């Protein structure tokens, strides 16, 4: 009976979204429902996480159809961790968007769509069925399309066209991969697939299918040659939307890659090497892209791409230690990236521009806020003992052990460029003398906002910074969590047992 709580994060978001749709005209109510609901979903995520932690992997078969035939929902430690992180950043962004999103956007259903997005994310993390994963992906992308276009500014529509095209293309490739996989095995349940794919003699065809999955998820995760839609679109919507996109949407792609390549397509050296090369190139090209930009939001977009490289790199090495590093980095990165885009929004509120050249003097005006911002900046770079450091340490030591010295070069290069870019933002936006504020229509600067709004903008940043600090200073606990996740991922028998084993006995 306890296992039914696997559904709770999904159902709560669905009910939230529907009740928000019913209060379409009452924006005030929408704000309250969204905020209270996101706190509630955080409580539920914590409950699911602690239950999964103490009782091991939880499995529910939808409609009580036995495992390989029906749709399974599985909450192993990995999925539960990601649901928890989704709830944390979802809550922060919910408060932040109540503080920053224009009333015109809220009137056209920003908040319901936002909760539909969270619904899709929770579903994607918890499902144990590959076609169901496709459906959750579609829920995620259709809500993200609405979020990215809502407001209808010229840049938004242009960015949306690119975002839209490549995401649908990725979905078609994903669907093609599912079709081929179904043709090969006659199954869609991921645990069952793991057993059946291992038995297939025609390894060439399996490899082709794996490459199709790599391309489909690679576009969503913004891997090296497939990332061009990201910097063309992520800076166009309001910062609250960019925050949830930057924090979670690319990470769903990473999650799917990790899930598929640790469960179904296991131990393929050729594929591992491809992933390693892609990861290295992602690190290089993302870092170089970040160097060339002047728009803060675009710099952050390139940093997303760059840091995806770290996670994919560990997946390519495919040792337990490397996966531990990946999971640690994923935990750190979701919080850090969400926070980063919200900070971008705060900077825009204060200076009225995203351009580094045209802004300045933030430190002189708001020393406390500047000090707050420096913490996530440093943890992004990986200054010890902040959160980014521990994951990078694991990844570097693992590359050293496996003899991939060029990977260490790539990691250090990307870290150095991140440091450089952050230092440049600091020098330009914070330390430079202040410039005259541009006059904008329908825009209120931070200093003229009411105190309640100020709290709604700064509060979520403080909250995520505290979480970031906890990840850094409580690294021992996070490391223990990451080790357990890596252990479960490397030994895919545990997952298969949890999904198929229970049902064959009763």
């Amino acid at each position, binding site marked *: 009976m306890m296992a039914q709580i696997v559904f709770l994060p999904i159902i709560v978001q669905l009910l939230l979204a529907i009740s928000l749709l019913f209060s379409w005209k009452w924006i005030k109510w929408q704000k309250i429902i969204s905020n209270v609901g996101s706190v509630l979903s955080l409580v539920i995520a914590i409950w699911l996480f602690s239950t999964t932690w103490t009782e091991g992997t939880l499995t529910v078969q939808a409609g009580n159809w036995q495992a390989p035939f029906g749709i399974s929902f599985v909450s192993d430690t990995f999925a539960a961790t990601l649901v928890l992180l989704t709830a944390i950043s979802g809550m922060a962004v919910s408060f932040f968007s109540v503080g920053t999103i224009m009333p015109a956007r809220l009137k056209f259903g920003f908040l319901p769509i936002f909760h539909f997005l969270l619904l899709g994310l929770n579903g994607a993390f918890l499902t144990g069925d590959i*076609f169901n994963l496709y459906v959750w992906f579609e829920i995620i992308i*259709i809500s993200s399309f609405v979020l990215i276009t809502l407001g*209808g500014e010229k840049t938004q529509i*242009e960015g949306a*066209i690119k975002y839209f095209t490549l995401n649908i*293309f990725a979905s078609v490739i994903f669907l093609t991969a*599912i079709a081929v996989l*179904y043709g090969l095995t006659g199954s869609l349940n991921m645990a069952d697939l793991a057993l059946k794919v291992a038995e297939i003699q025609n390894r060439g065809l399996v490899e082709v299918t794996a490459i199709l999955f790599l391309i489909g998820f690679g576009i969503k995760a913004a891997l090296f040659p497939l990332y061009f839609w990201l910097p063309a679109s992520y*800076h*166009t919507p309001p910062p609250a939307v960019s925050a949830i996109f930057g924090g979670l949407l690319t990470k769903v792609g990473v999650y799917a890659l990790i899930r598929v390549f640790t469960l179904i397509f296991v131990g393929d050296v050729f594929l591992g090497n491809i992933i390693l090369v892609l990861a290295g190139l992602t690190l290089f090209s993302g870092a170089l892209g970040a160097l060339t930009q002047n728009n803060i939001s675009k710099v952050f977009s390139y940093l997303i791409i760059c840091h995806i490289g770290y996670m994919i790199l560990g997946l390519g090495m495919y040792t337990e230690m490397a996966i531990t590093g990946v999971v640690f980095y994923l935990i750190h990165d979701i919080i850090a990236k969400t926070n980063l885009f919200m900070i971008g929004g705060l900077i825009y509120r204060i200076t009225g521009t995203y351009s580094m050249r045209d802004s300045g003097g933030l430190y002189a005006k708001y020393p406390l806020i500047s000090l707050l911002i420096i913490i996530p900046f440093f943890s992004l770079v990986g200054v010890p003992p902040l959160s980014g450091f521990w994951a990078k340490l694991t990844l570097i030591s693992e590359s050293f052990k496996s003899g991939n010295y060029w990977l260490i070069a790539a990691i250090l290069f990307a870290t150095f460029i991140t440091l450089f870019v952050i230092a440049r933002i600091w020098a330009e936006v914070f330390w430079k003398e202040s410039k005259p504020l541009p006059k904008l229509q329908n825009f209120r600067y931070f200093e003229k906002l009411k105190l309640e709004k100020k709290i709604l903008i700064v509060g979520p940043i403080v909250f995520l910074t505290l979480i970031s600090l906890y990840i850094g200073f409580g690294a021992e606990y996070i490391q223990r969590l990451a080790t357990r996740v890596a252990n479960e991922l490397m030994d895919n028998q545990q997952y298969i047992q949890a999904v198929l084993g229970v049902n064959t006995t009763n």
Partner: protein
Amino acid sequence: MELLLAILIGLLYAAGLYMMLRRSLVKLIIGLILLGNGANLLIFLLGRITKGLPPIIPEESSVFTSAYADPVPQALILTAIVISFGLQSFAIILVKRAYKVVKTDDLDQMNSTDR
């Protein structure tokens, strides 16, 4: 039949990709539609085509007595069609909006967010 379908699917994928690479927005949508249809047919083909044998258990027995058509691919295609229908209607509205706001349907002119 399988061969014919395989050739058709190949054509749909090729035409879809070609249309996506054109510069016109409308052709982009047509390309996406063709690709989606190709993927749906691929699921149908790879689920093995069985003619005239519905998956219905005869009244006098409790298991399937002969070969039967796999119902799962059909369910998958149905889901995929509904999803792609929604996405396509969104795409058409988005393209119309883009044409109104950016005042061009040439994808090469839409490069202000790339820089």
